[in-house]
């Protein structure tokens, strides 16, 4: 049994696939970036002294973590326009769904990072006269930051792969581009191999980057 690889086909379609990979990187970066902002706010909100704020943040995190991203994408792209009465741009829908999704997971990363800091730190800073916000900003968050970097890196990698789900709304990222090439050429093996390799290259690069960041922030600690 031999596998005949159509290399010409791979080379002909590589530009298209690379374009898809660029789109994947773009929506991942945007989604995790926005997710970071959402997650920071929600993560800290989860630790608020006000019950209402804690409760609201909790609902958001539970709903997003409790439902599949695929279903969330369908809700944003197909269901929301029916409620709003207007169409939603696919790019906007893809980034929105992924950001909201990322935000919930990042919130948990922030919350656990903050909670892992010894309670004594918070008590000491309060004793020194810093209020809640100042304690967070100057004492807790800088220390939590180091612990947050590895799981944040994981979230970026996870979102890069999960972004393949937006293919179901026809959004032309890497996976969808692969499917479209296959529907034209029927070269199932070649295309999926190349798509997998491209995803792998992207995730490996990000892993390296995170490792570098980790080292950088660890030199201050002995």
């Amino acid at each position: 049994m031999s596998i005949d690889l159509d290399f010409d086909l791979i080379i002909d379609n590589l530009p298209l696939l690379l374009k898809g990979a660029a789109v994947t990187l773009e929506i991942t970066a945007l989604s995790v970036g926005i997710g970071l902002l959402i997650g920071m706010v929600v993560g800290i909100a989860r630790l608020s002294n006000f019950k209402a704020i804690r409760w609201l943040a909790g609902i958001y995190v539970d709903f997003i973590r409790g439902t599949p991203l695929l279903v969330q994408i369908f809700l944003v792209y197909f269901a929301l326009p029916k409620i709003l009465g207007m169409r939603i741009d696919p790019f906007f829908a893809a980034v929105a769904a992924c950001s909201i999704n990322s935000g919930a997971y990042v919130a948990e990363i922030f919350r656990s990072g903050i909670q892992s800091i010894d309670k004594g730190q918070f008590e000491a800073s309060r004793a020194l006269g810093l209020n809640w916000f100042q304690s967070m900003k100057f004492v807790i968050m800088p220390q939590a930051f180091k612990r947050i970097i590895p799981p944040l890196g994981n979230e970026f990698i996870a979102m890069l792969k999960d972004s393949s789900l937006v293919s179901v709304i026809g959004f032309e990222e890497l996976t969808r581009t692969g499917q479209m090439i296959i529907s034209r050429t029927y070269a199932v093996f070649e295309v999926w191999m190349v798509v997998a390799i491209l995803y792998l290259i992207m995730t490996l690069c990000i892993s390296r980057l995170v490792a570098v960041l980790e080292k950088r922030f660890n030199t201050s600690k002995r």
Partner: protein
Amino acid sequence: MLKRTLLALPLVALLSSSLLAGCDDKKETAAKPQEKILRVGTNPTFAPFEFQGKDAELTGFDMDLIRAIGKQMGYKVELHNLAFDGLIPAIATGNIDMAIAGMTINEDRKKQVNFSVPYYTSGLIILVNPDNNEVKSLDDLKGKRIGVQLGTTGAFKAATVPDAKVVTFNNSDEQFLELSNKGVDACINDHPVVAYYLVQGGKGKMIGNVMEEESYGIALKKGNDELTKKVNDAIAELKKNGEFDKIHKKWFGA
């Protein structure tokens, strides 16, 4: 002691579930050595050819036809629900023996699969929203957004329109949904499917003439001439004894 018990628990659960799974398989293959199974792939989002009935069973013209063909051939029909663009790859790898999914016979596909004799003649039509008075023909779609189902002849047709943005979906109903959300200006799909959608209460109007005369065929593995012949003989027999006409009348009234 407690720690060790807790650690052992998931291991025991994993082992016992895999053992049980193994048991089931043996029982099934032991009970049915004589039954010939026809693994048929389809994409049940294509009413009235194949779609999910009220009781979650796959129903439609194609479904009734393939069950009749299976019965005629003496095989048990096992239906597999796949994305349309995944059907031909699934046949090529042998995951399914054949596919019936309102699939048009064309030269490109003939290079990948065997086709049965044609069993239905159809064409493509453009669907737009009821309030759209701009688009009257394929030419008016220049520069517009067109919704299609990935891998279908409708998709290939839309690709020929200059400057059009073709948005691909996995399922037929998703493209209609997109049209009603005004995400695309028009859809191109098979005429009977669009007609059925409108009859069932879908909002929209068909414009222009039916394009491309297309014949549907059952796709089988390339080179599997033996099974292809059996299917063709079955279809011929069903046409002869009136079963085929009965099914056609049930779904198309004539």
